[in-house]
């Protein structure tokens, strides 16, 4: 039976059909749906770990003990998991282990565009790159088999358009889930220098065998075409090339580490002009050039962003491979430009209050990653920086120690999921090194940004079971933070008061701004109304960046459909024109 599945759902299906016993990961677009789908299959244990490093370590344990395992994360998650990853190829596995790295060319929902194929080379993993959902499912299964056959972790590298595009997939029957026997083997699994050196040599041998496999696997194949133009490509680019150059010869690489060098040489010899089409870095190109093969790559195709067939047509046109397509008139030529429609904090979002306050207090704010990063955009503009998950706390401490002028004027803001992911160690450091910094934990009781996943402080796990709920207040106290205040961010005056007093107090302080995400607990109260007499059109309420508020004919207008009655604007309004539901306790 064929079904229309996204790449992510297909990967989950592949894990289900091929005997995966344990699945672990941390949410991150575009990888999240893999575990969400797996958690609905019976017979597979799945979990959200607090971060990617832990997720991989959980996976390593399961695989070492003999279970087939999948670990999922977005591309930047692999940075967090890099430490265990870089030694994992040394020890190898027992049960197969597939690490899904979901890259995001074009940065649809990421802070950078890193090309994780280099991780496979760096960490000496086998790497598979699917170009559609069927391949995603098949490569998941094959990846497990390769992992076991060569005693090597396998990276299944997707990109947004593979992960989030749907295409037809032939479903199969699940095989029996079996655990391979485990026996203690310190020379393989205990990476002290003496044993590490042995495994380093073993790894070189295993890599050589894999390279041989790569030459012969049907994952790498030639689509025969004319001998004038040859293209070497992988992943989604393969589909684009097939669309744009249906007659060209194509070497499609499904296994991109190690590369089938002999196959590449053979292919190159068959065609007059050779191109490499790959998004992001010249990963294939560099290795092909090392073979002394002449090839056109990044001098023609961009380094940045996502490719599409229009772009490839233009590039191949420039190279004289395609005749320039006739200039068609843009139907939008001469029409006004559409103003942007940026995502904004939802009506009723508790984060809004915090950023409004931080901006009013003119503080320097080191930020972090989550929905709340939107609080850095106009008109809220309540964040100065966002680097990676967990960075806010260390950065605030660095400012506190280095720049006297900003001392007492700096706060870190971090979401609850992000705090548990990688903020705890930053806070520990702030305590240990006698920081005076103030940290605001935006505790909306969920991982909102990636679609409301549970985490260790929500009281529920991925399998939908009740789970112990980490007490964030107690956690901070136990790290040595003496001053921990919990505030309801919707109580603006108290929030402001607490922030003002904590920033000037010596020693580290934590303010937990706690209120559930507005989408999580939909309690819609009567919409705010505007007293037309009292409204002076001062636009103070617009500074909240609320999707329910606008100014029409110089008076504030609250759109009743959009307003959830959170009452923030009522508190902000200087003239008492905004009137509405009450703040509950």
């Amino acid at each position: 039976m064929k079904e229309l599945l996204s790449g992510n759902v297909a990967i989950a299906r592949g894990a289900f059909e091929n005997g995966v016993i344990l699945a672990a990961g941390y949410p991150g677009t575009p990888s999240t749906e893999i575990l969400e789908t797996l958690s609905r299959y019976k017979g597979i244990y799945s979990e959200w770990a607090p971060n990617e490093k832990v997720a991989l370590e959980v996976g390593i344990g399961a695989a070492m003990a003999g279970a087939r395992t999948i670990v999922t994360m977005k591309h930047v998650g692999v940075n967090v998991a890099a430490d265990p990853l870089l030694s994992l190829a040394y020890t190898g596995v027992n049960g197969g282990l597939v690490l899904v790295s979901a890259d995001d060319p074009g940065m649809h929902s990421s802070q950078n565009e890193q090309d994780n194929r280099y991780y496979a080379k760096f960490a000496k993993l086998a790497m598979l790159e699917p170009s559609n959902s069927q391949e995603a499912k098949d490569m998941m299964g094959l990846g497990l088999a390769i992992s076991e056959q060569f005693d090597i972790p396998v990276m299944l590298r997707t990109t947004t358009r593979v992960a989030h595009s749907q295409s037809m997939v032939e479903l199969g029957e699940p095989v029996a889930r079996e655990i391979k026997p485990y026996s203690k083997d310190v020379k393989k699994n205990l990476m002290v220098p003496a044993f590490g050196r042995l495994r380093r040599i073993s790894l070189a041998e295993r890599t050589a065998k894999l390279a041989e496999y790569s030459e012969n696997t049907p994952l790498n194949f030639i689509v025969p075409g004319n001998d004038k133009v040859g293209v070497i490509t992988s992943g989604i680019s393969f589909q684009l090339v097939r669309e744009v150059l249906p007659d060209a010869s194509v070497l499609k690489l499904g296994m991109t580490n190690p590369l089938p060098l002999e196959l590449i040489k053979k292919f190159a010899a068959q065609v007059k002009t050779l191109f490499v089409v790959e998004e992001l870095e010249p990963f294939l190109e560099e290795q092909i050039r090392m073979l002394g093969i002449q090839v056109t790559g990044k001098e023609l195709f961009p380094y940045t962003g996502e490719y599409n067939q229009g772009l490839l047509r233009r590039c191949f046109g420039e190279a004289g491979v395609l005749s320039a397509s006739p200039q068609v008139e843009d139907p939008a030529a001469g029409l006004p430009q559409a103003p942007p429609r940026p995502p904004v904090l939802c009506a009723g979002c508790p984060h809004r209050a915090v950023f409004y306050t931080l901006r009013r207090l003119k503080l320097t704010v080191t930020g972090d990653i989550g929905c709340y990063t939107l609080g850095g955009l106009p008109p809220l503009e309540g964040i100065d920086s966002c680097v990676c998950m967990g960075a806010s706390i260390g950065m605030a401490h660095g400012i506190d120690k280095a720049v006297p002028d900003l001392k007492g004027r700096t706060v870190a803001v971090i979401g609850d999921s992000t705090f548990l992911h990688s903020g705890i160690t930053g806070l520990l450091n702030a305590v240990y090194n006698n920081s005076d910094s103030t940290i605001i934990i935006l505790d909306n009781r969920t991982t909102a940004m990636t679609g409301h996943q549970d985490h260790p402080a929500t009281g529920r796990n991925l399998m939908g079971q009740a789970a112990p709920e980490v007490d964030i207040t107690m956690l901070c106290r136990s790290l040595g933070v003496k001053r921990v205040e919990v505030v309801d961010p919707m109580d603006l005056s108290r929030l402001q008061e607490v922030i003002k007093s904590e920033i000037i107090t010596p020693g580290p302080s934590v303010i937990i701004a706690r209120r559930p995400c507005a989408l999580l607990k939909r309690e819609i109260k009567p919409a705010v109304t505007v007293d037309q007499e009292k409204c002076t059109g001062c636009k103070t309420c617009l500074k909240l960046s609320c999707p329910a508020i606008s100014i029409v004919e110089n008076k504030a207008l609250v759109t009743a459909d959009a307003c959830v009655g959170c009452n923030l604007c009522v508190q902000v309004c200087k003239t008492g024109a905004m009137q509405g539901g009450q703040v509950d306790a």
Partner: protein
Amino acid sequence: MLKPVDVLMVGVGGQGTILASKVLAAAAQAVGYDIKVSEIHGMAQRGGSVVTQVRLGERVYSPLISEGEADVILAFEELEALRWLSYLKPGGTLIINNQQIYPVPVLAGVAEYPQNIIAQIQSRGVNVQVLKALEQAISCGNAKAANVVLLGALAQKLPIEEKIWRDALAATIPPRLLEVNNTAFTAGFTVGTVSVGC
């Protein structure tokens, strides 16, 4: 030989573009199309733009539609129609819902919502079919069915029989909402037979 069709569905988070693309895919699958659907819903719940690309053909390679390639743009909102208009191919059709949802920069007074979007697009010689999907959905009994009104209008343009659409609706929509949605579909489908001018 199935005629290849590229449909771009554009709208604002919460307007039901995803359900519409599901029904379309189910109908296309029933007639034997190869299908690729690609979605970017950049924080859809937070009021951002949503774009779903649906490609149908005997064999579809790229999941993406490039500028100047869409046979049909199904626009759930006027500004989004304007934003994605360059994706329409010469001779293609824009089906547009006459609904305006102001983005925050407009609400905040830092950007302007362009005036008379529909008339301006028509003045460019584009085939435009205008629907009052929201009003029609309300008169069918559920404002949320506006997406299915639009789908009905799209169905009119595609080489897939009505019966297959009905089955696809039944397979995709929960039973208790099916009747309203069938009525909504009819509303769009019959509007689709006549070109409405402004």
